[in-house]
Every structure is written in structure tokens, then in C-alpha cells.
């Protein structure tokens, strides 16, 4: 098992800095010993699982934010369009100036 490669993979995966530090620390210790123990593999897998789950939570949150902004923007867009129409109508009515 190429421990340096696994460490590099973790760095490129887009994990949080806390997880990266933790995984990096475990692998660094393993490199010194020349071996990754079973418990360490399990711990790294647990951290990876948390990362995947949190990434999903963030994805869901951002979807909801997008939906909220869209709802609000739709309301404002129609209000602004209506306002622009009324101003145009007012200008066309010839009483503008």
C-alpha cells in the first residue's frame, strides 16, 4: 500500500482541513512505522464516511438556498417588470414632462 499516495489522494479529495490533518497525522505515523494498522485503516474509513455525509448535507443546504433565492428573485423580477411597465405607460401617456 502506497501511503504517500493515499495521503495525496486525501489532499486532492476536497476534504475539510480537520479531516485532512487527522488523516495526514495517521498516515505520517504509519509511514514512520512502515505499516498502516487495521485500526488506523478503520479510522481513516470512518473519517471518509463523515466527509461524504457532510458533503451531502452541504449539497442539500445549497440546493435549498438556491431555491430560496430563486423564489425571492422571481417575486422581485415580476415586481420590477411591473414597475417598469407602469413607468413606460406613464411616459407614453405624454404627461411626463
Amino acid at each position, binding site marked *: 500500500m502506497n501511503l504517500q499516495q493515499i495521503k495525496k489522494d486525501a489532499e486532492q479529495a476536497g476534504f475539510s482541513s480537520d479531516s485532512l490533518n487527522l488523516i495526514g497525522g495517521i498516515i505520517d505515523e504509519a509511514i514512520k512505522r512502515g505499516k498502516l494498522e487495521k485500526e488506523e485503516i478503520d479510522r481513516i474509513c470512518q473519517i471518509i464516511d463523515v466527509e461524504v455525509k457532510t458533503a451531502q*448535507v452541504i449539497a442539500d443546504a445549497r440546493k435549498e438556498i438556491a431555491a430560496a433565492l430563486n423564489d425571492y428573485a422571481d417575486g422581485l423580477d415580476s415586481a420590477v417588470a411591473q414597475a417598469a411597465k407602469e413607468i413606460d405607460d406613464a411616459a407614453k401617456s405624454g404627461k411626463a414632462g
Partner: protein
Amino acid sequence: MSNFFERQTSEGNVSHDKILANQKDKGFSNSDKILYYAIKIVEAAARSFEPDPTLGNLFDKKVVPEIRKRLDSETNAKINKLEARLDRVKRETKDKIWNLVKEANIPGLEIGSYVEKAVNKIDYLRTMDKKKIEVEPPSLKDRIIGGFKRLIGMGNSARRDAGNMDLLARNNNVKAAAMGMKMKLDR
């Protein structure tokens, strides 16, 4: 050609202010106030404010409160509802991540930075791209108008940023990387 503050009419370029002043007694609907006060605020801002590197702060502290004061109650209620919704998403996201970390019970894993990152991102989205306003064009007036247009539209880029493309890509990257790492660890 008319500028942002004017409309072309058969009588030449006429300011929105004048058009609306002459129509005052006709009773505009609530929706006109958004554009009317937007124009008034942008005009006032363009005249009054000195170039300021912290235009984002200016929007937060001066322009936005002014607009809020002048918007009708229905529009303000919509803004309040949106803010409450974003606050809820922020709170729930933070709680969910902390719960995941707590349940995982991994010594040394706190993911504080992950929560901060997520919450900051939500704050960033709700401030409607202030960073871009701060670095954008040379003219203060242009910057304010540009900023205000974003404010009115709640920032298309913020919406796009919050949209599915990049988050799905990120999510897939994390999943793919996670699977790859697990496979290597299992060998």
C-alpha cells in the same frame, strides 16, 4: 440615448423622478416602489458617496437599510421571510454536520473548519456577491448601479453559485475520491 436614470419619451429624455412625480396622484401599485426607490437610492448614492474600497459595507450599512425603510410592507415581509429561511438553513446545516461528527465519535475529529466553511458559504451567498461588487468597475456610479442590480435580482451569480452544477461536481469528487481511497486501503 437615455441613461439609467432616464426614459426616452417623445419629449426627449425624461427622468424617472419627473415621470413619477407627474403621475403621483394616479396611484401606483406597490410594485413601482421597488424600482422608484431603487432609482432614488442609486441616484443619492452616486451623488453622495465617495469612492470606498469597502463598498460592500456601504451597501450593508447605508444603502440596504435605506431601501428597506422605503419598501412597502409586503416586500419587506418577503425579505424577512427569505432571511428567516436562510437563517434556518444555516442553523440546520451546522447542526446536521455537528451531529454527524458527534455520532461518528472519532477521537480528534471536530470538523470545526468544515462547519465554518459551510456556514461562511451560506453567509456569502446571502450577501449577494459583495466581493464582486468590491472589485468591480472603475466608476463608483457604475459599481453602485451594478451592485443594486444584483440586489434587485438577488444576484444571478449567487443563485448560480448556489445551484446544482458545482456542488454536484464537488459532491461527486468527494464520493469518487472516498471510494478510491477506500479501495486502496482495502488492498
